[in-house]
């Protein structure tokens, strides 16, 4: 019983220490706020996601065309549209930066 209680107290102490570590390690932080993305950051992220989607789409179009899944006419039409989309996304990232 006594041993169990001592061990239980050790477990509880270790837990409290682990929970307190962020406060013990940084005695006086100047900055204690979670990094919240600004609106410009959110816009940049949205453009970056759109850019990645467009670039990935261009790769897929190329692959689907080479494997015969996409006709020449469809490929030409779609590749133009996605190049424009990628370019627009890249342009969007610059001002957001």
């Amino acid at each position: 019983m006594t041993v169990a209680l001592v061990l239980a107290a050790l477990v509880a102490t270790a837990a409290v220490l682990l929970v307190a570590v962020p406060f013990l390690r940084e005695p006086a932080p100047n900055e204690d706020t979670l990094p919240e993305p600004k609106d410009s950051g959110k816009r940049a992220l949205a453009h970056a996601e759109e850019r990645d989607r467009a670039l990935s789409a261009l790769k897929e179009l190329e692959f689907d065309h080479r494997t015969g899944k996409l006709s020449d006419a469809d490929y030409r039409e779609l590749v133009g549209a996605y190049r424009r989309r990628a370019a627009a996304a890249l342009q969007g990232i610059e001002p957001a930066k």
Partner: protein
Amino acid sequence: MADLGRAALFVSLGLAVYATVVGAWAARTHKRRLSDSAGNALLAALGSTAVAAAVLLSALLRHDFSFAYVAQHTSTELPTGYSISAFWGGQEGSLLLWLLVLTAYASAAVLINRRRAPDLVAWSVPVLGAVAVFFAFMLVAVSSPFETQTAPIEGAGLNPSLQNPYMLAHPPLLYLGYVGLTVPFAFGMGALLAGRTDERWIVATRRWTLVAWTALGVGQLLGAHWAYVEVGWGGYYAWDPVENAALMPWLAATAFLHSVMIQEKRGMLKVWNVLLVILAFCLSLFGTFLTRSGVVNSIHSFTESPLGPWFLGFICVVTAGSLALVFWRLPLLRTKTRLESLVSREAAFLYNNLLLVALCLTILWGVAFPMLSELVRGETRTVGRPYYDFFLRTFGLPLLLLMGIGPLIAWRRASLRSLGRMFVWPAGIAVAVGVVLLALGAGSSTPGLVAYTFSAFVLATIVLEFVRGTRAVGSFTQLVGRNRRRYGGYIVHASVVLLALGVAGSGAYGSTAERKLSPGQSLSVAGYTLTYRSLSQQRGANHIALRAAVDVSRGDKLVARVQPGKNRYFAEQQVSNEMAIHTDWLRAEDVDVIADQINPGGAIYFKVLVKPLVNLIWVAGLVFLAGALVALWPDAREQRRLAARYALAEA
């Protein structure tokens, strides 16, 4: 030591409450150190839960019957392996395993993502904490594994059906799957709470979902094999509610893994993906509720328990809360992107999703209907195999076909000419296979013939995809290496085909014979002759084994001697059926021999089943695991691209 276990669980509960309350406060007020502290509470909860688990495991190994749980689930004669597996053989131990796995997953998710996505982790911690609070509370207040008593001389032992090596792997894998679905749920809810509807939560949880989904899939196949070799009825899946409980979240997670690709590639289906994550998690809770509440009369529900109302209440709270959250964030989740064509890869994914969810909900209705019927009308109704088989055919066969069609269609749109060119070989091969099978007599079962034909179509598609892709890229390893998820997915599709072949073969084209035989007598089935020779009795570690010697012949040739029988367990005072299996590798079929009733005079009522292609189901498990590992393997190029993307947002 029970005091230590109880205290450790109290500490876990306190830490989980801290992670929930303080974590939510920290996320709301954007306090970084407080948020880190809440995350650390989950790490500490893992430590204290591990201490509780170690106490229980030690008691099980020492056969310390002063622990009521140990006395109820082990005996001194129980082999060590099964004493360990008794940890999850009962309700209290299973809940402890849930909490242990949950805190382990939560700790790993926090450690991996807290620097990459601190704002997302900040809101995910209270969600993970809230789930941990529920399970820790159950263990502390409702169903403790540390109840003590005056130690009896001997324990009750473990149910004989659970005394199988699969008991060491099947339940832990299912728990890894069930509990693993908490991580995508927590991050999905965390993203909604934070108002972050970008793809970061999907990127952060993709692998967690894959791990949970793989564990659930492999766990179910191990369970099926366990049922096949151990339960002694010659089947592997009985549509038991508890079996269905594992299948439903797996189906929902399968739908999510497909539809999430549409969000990544096209920015569509944001609401749908969140709903699928909620569905998968709620179904995993529902699965635990079914297994542990004793609400359904099933082979797995060994104990009636007071857990039911708590679980049901928690499931209702989680469902209502998460749906309210989705509704609140609906304006942020709406997207402008639309489907460009109904004949495109993304459209095929959408159809696949609808079929998977329809199958999942149909099974859910089959499981829930008897309970609702009893609750509302006071009548006990059962939903049997014909119901499930009908819907498996209705949704499963089109799903199988879609697995072949999807990869042949281009993303975004496809012209009829391209489609025709892509389909000609797989369709030709499928038709040829169908005609040959028809000529060989496979027309005796229309669903079986359709399943075989569709399987040939899908396999041809997969092979062609690899061949065409290798030609286009120039190297097989580069092809797979550059798109592990796609080609890992194709390998998983191949495993589903093997599964379909195994299920169709053993179900639609199997043969059965039953007869009472005395020593020297024979029965014949599907070209085999089985002759009963003698009956013997052996003593095992904790049981008496009765075994019949049966010669299996084909024509004049003796192909095997098998020994079906029964085990009588002393401590448990139960009898188990021990089926004997002869695998004929050349003919790709199993001969299952069951000694159903053993009469005192030595006559035995035998049941013999011949199951063609049944072993493909187990092979499918290995192929499934291989495909999942390919899909899971880290892709350094993708990680660099994602790191650059998120660095841009932070800058």
